[in-house]
């Protein structure tokens, strides 16, 4: 990785995630500065770029799909990124939010907006600005092709670092024993 080489563009987003996977990415600590010598961030919660650029090299997705907007953002990432990585349990299998999948949406709605303690005016939000929720939380590979999966809730900073440095060096990413965790 010598100096004049073009930096890789990396976009990241959190769909129905908790941001913990992004935190784990930042948990590479000082190595962030080493990483920045080789990559530039495109659309990401860490920048003010709001749309993925058409020539993105790597897209990193945290979180599963819980509403129509998540699906839209995911498709946009797939269209514009050469490599797409599913980061963490939520992206891979829906994660904890998928525990709502056995419940009918209306039951949850009723409870949160009508019967929960201290609600003064029961009403279900219904503005067109709010995206349609899916009635189940879905993993992202059901909707687009995913190139790599990094498991864990969240995956450790070491695991994320390993995958990114492998990709930067042009190697096939390999987690191997010790970095493969599901907790």
């Amino acid at each position, binding site marked *: 990785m010598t100096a004049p080489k073009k930096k890789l563009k990396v976009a990241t987003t959190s769909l129905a995630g908790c941001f913990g996977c992004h935190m784990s990415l930042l948990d590479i600590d000082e190595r962030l500065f080493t990483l920045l010598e080789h990559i530039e961030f495109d659309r990401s919660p860490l920048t003010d770029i709001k749309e993925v650029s058409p020539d993105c090299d790597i897209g990193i997705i945290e979180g599963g799909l819980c*509403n129509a907007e998540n699906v839209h953002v995911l498709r946009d990432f797939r269209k514009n990124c050469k490599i797409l990585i599913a980061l963490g349990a939520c992206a891979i299998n829906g994660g904890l939010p998928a*525990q709502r999948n056995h419940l009918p949406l209306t039951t949850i709605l009723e409870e949160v907006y009508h019967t929960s303690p201290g*609600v*003064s005016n029961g009403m279900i939000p*219904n*503005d067109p600005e709010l995206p349609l929720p899916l009635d189940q939380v879905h993993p992202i590979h059901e909707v687009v092709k995913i190139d790599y999966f990094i498991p864990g809730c969240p995956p450790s900073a070491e695991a994320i670092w390993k995958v990114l440095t492998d990709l930067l060096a042009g190697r096939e990413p390999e987690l191997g024993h010790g970095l493969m965790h599901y907790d």
Partner: protein
Amino acid sequence: MSYQLETAEHPEMLRRVAIDPVSRVEGHGKVTILLDDQNKVHQVRLHIVEFRGFEKFIQGRPYWEVPVMVQRLCGICPVSHHLAASKALDIIVGAKKLTPAAEKLRRLMHYGQMLQSHALHFFHLCSPDLLFGFDSDVTRRNIVGVAAAHPEIAKRGVLLRKFGQEVIRVTAGKRVHGTGAVPGGMNKSLTIAERDELLKDIYHIVAWSRDAVHLIQKVHTQDPGLYNSFGIFRSNFMSLVGHNGDLDFYHGTLRARDDNGKLIFDGVDYQEYDRYIDEEVRSWSYMKFPYFRSLGKEHGWYKVGPLARVQNCNQISTPFAEHERKEFVDYAGGTPMHAPLAYHWTRMIEMLHAAEVIKELLHDDDLLSNDLMVEGERQMEGVGVIEAPRGTLFHHYRVDENDLITMANLIVSTTNNNQAMNEAVRHVARRYLHGHEVTEGLLNHIEVAIRAFDPCLSCATHALGKMPLAVELVDAEGLLIHSLSRA
């Protein structure tokens, strides 16, 4: 207090501009602005657009799973949810008072959380606005830009956050989503090696935190015209206060003041929070709008978080942070400071306090003790409240005789600030957008106001709404996975 600009009279006649997604905040939100042909602003709303459904799906789970599950509401302050839930469950297992070791370990974990979250917010997310200006070049407005222009500031931000994360790791087992607290206590103490490792760094962590207060103080006081007025509105505020009215992030009673600083209530046992706070639902956001019942919907809303806490307490127990608190109060001239950008200054005072408390705790041998658990008479209901980095956080659970959760109600910190954030963006829209061509730089002004509150929109999305629309979810091969429609 008014709801000016919340709802336009004829939205159908107006042009819509959206900030979507709001960036350099945690989680998902968008802002919509409705303008007429003369670029006059008629409506501004901060919408919380997502749902994940926690309150409902934790029902039916055994109560001891809850402190681990609810962390997944938020990866930035998982410890706050972990501890608020644990405190509620302490009540349920009858642990009226924890052992000194357990309480101090939890405090250490929580103050580590405070330090890392405040550092993340200030350095990684907000510092570009504060150092480069609100309408500086969009490609530079991020931590990478800060690292290029001010490498020392960026590096300290990263290392301050790292230290906080390490405090969490040794107390909870993992940096994100650990398992340290259990109903009635803690599941591990510190080893001498773990403690000594942290002690090695704590002195420069305190020093860097002091420098951070001075940095934001300088930025703020050099441009008082902007910083004292940007996005300003008056409101009540609320926080927990500890023993003797001290600033306390882990435990205490509820105190609220009005916009002049006069007490509305004080010494309130948070088990009774639902006698004081109600929540209103509005059609355009999945996040509810809480308010003090005694003052009603229109006048009862409030701010929480650093700006509320630092002005609500009587004093701070650690010397450097107390010195800085007094400087801040003097600057405000003896009346409550309402400027949203003062959140940054008070947030750094809190970070310094967290560093000082961690230093004190690391010298306390109770951290090494294995006397970690207490039990008592089993209860069916408990409320846990904590001061999370973004403000007061409520967890409320009921449990049946089989130990399964039957009811959960959460009011997260960002929800408490919902109306306040909406007021701030409307103020900015009136001042900077009204009658002007809307540019990227002007739109960032709106986001600067939102960021001051350090909203955690992923936390805020635990509730769910429904839309009269239809979608089809199609897989990569074009096959229909399922469709959903709603009348």
